[in-house]
């Protein structure tokens, strides 16, 4: 079981692919949109994250014969989706604890 926390770019890439398969530029724009314009991934960071996710089997390429080589599409695997849900659970727990602690301090 992979219980380690994800970095923010990786998490945002996974969230982007959780909705639908996307190619590189679409992921960049979607990450920018998800984060409200706060996170602007560079191509180096994006493809570093994609390579690691591919190596770990969290995402895979969509095999389409007519897709050009410079515009390949990626999609989340079931393993990636499972790990993303675990990460969201971890964050949910963390925010719950954070809310309780900050509320207690303010009271």
């Amino acid at each position, binding site marked *: 079981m*992979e219980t*380690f*926390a*994800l*970095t*923010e*770019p*990786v*998490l945002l890439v996974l969230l982007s692919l959780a909705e639908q398969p996307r190619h*590189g*530029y679409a992921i*960049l724009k979607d990450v920018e949109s*998800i984060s409200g314009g*706060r996170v*602007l*991934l*560079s*191509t*180096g*960071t*994006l*493809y*570093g994250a*994609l*390579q*690691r996710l591919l*190596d*770990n089997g969290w995402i895979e390429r969509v095999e389409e014969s007519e897709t050009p*080589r*410079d*515009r*390949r599409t990626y999609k989340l695997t079931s393993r990636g989706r499972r790990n993303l849900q675990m990460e*969201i659970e971890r*964050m*949910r727990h963390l*925010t*719950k604890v*954070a*809310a309780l602690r*900050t*509320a207690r301090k*303010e009271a």
Partner: protein
Amino acid sequence: MLAVYCWLLCLYPGSCRHEFGEEMTSVFREARSKLPPTLAAKISFYRSEFCGLLSGALRAHFDRLFGPGIPFPRFYMQPQFRFPRATVFLMLVILAGVVLTIEKARTIVNGPHQVTSAWTLPPWFIFLFPALACAAVAAVWGLLFALRRTGMHRLDGIQTSPVNSNPTLPGKTGLS
């Protein structure tokens, strides 16, 4: 700029370049074509792209040499666990200062007869003091800047209003 980008791609290991090179160039070209026409946006874009490429190439070489031992460690690319660049720069300046001081002390200890008298100092030596003063001011400024970045800047981001009852909503309190 596209030529520079392609040239920088050569810093990646061959396998990475072969696998992602065309895609990265294509995405770079597309992103560049949709940039706002302001100079600031262009500078920010190129800076981010070239820094991303350099760090990505370094990371790819590291992974190739040592293997991806830790898949996605939190201390990698995570803003709140990363040293601000100003701190790293300041640490390097201090390190350089310490090394130079040690070297100077070693020279003095090894050959005290070689230490020149104040009366025989070369004329350019007088400019050394203003330069040292400027360096000291720059170091203090760097220190203050680093402290502001690490402390005040992040304190500003702390949410003081009542926390949203739905913790699943995205926001800056998540992983930002």
